[in-house]
């Protein structure tokens, strides 16, 4: 078994624009149910949604002078909105899990293995 990061990246305007409230509520419910299934199968290590990027703070203490700056490390159009950490046999299984996760949360997801 190996651990994989399944991350969701949001556009510049924040979380995806759902067509309406009902679609958003369905995505939340589907994602909750999906997480429950992953947990039951023993494949869920962690799942969480991050607060908005303006809550980020950078800390640079590489040389002992602790420099703190507001805002995220990278300035990009997209930002990390949240992620799962899963246990899967191999990349093929991780991609299958990611397909279900993508459908549930109505977002593209990125899969990347941990060392």
């Amino acid at each position: 078994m190996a651990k994989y990061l399944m991350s969701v990246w949001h556009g510049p305007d924040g979380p995806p624009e759902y067509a309406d409230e009902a679609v958003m509520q369905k995505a939340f419910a589907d994602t909750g149910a999906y997480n429950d299934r992953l947990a039951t199968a023993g494949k869920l290590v962690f799942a969480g949604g991050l607060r908005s990027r303006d809550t980020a703070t950078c800390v640079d203490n590489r040389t002992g002078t602790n420099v703190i700056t507001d805002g995220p490390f990278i300035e990009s159009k997209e930002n990390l909105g949240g992620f799962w950490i899963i246990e899967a046999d191999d990349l093929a299984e991780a991609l299958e899990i990611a397909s279900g996760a993508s459908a549930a949360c109505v977002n593209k997801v990125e899969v990347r293995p941990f060392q």
Partner: protein
Amino acid sequence: MTQYMISVWHEPDLDDNISDDDMQRMFTQVDAFNQQVTAAGKWVFGGGLEPVHTATCVDGRDGGNVVTDGPFIESKEILGGFWVLELADLDEALELARQASAACEGKVEVRPFQGE
């Protein structure tokens, strides 16, 4: 208590440009930091990611399943790894980020998770 992500971002080719001695020193320092936060009951998760070229994107929306190689975003710096820690507040998160930055010899970013 709130969960915080302390993430490490670096240039994509960092692993190729670092000596074994430097790497081992960082591993030892990070291991000591990990043991300290685990003993204090603050540990939720920590891990280093494989290089960014190992990333795959999956789009399963609308009943489809489109799989593409590579990361979602192209950026100068990439997510190299991160901790998830359970902490009292942002002050504690910034204090642990200070220690984490020294341990991994990298700049780190602190971001809170949404509540339940």
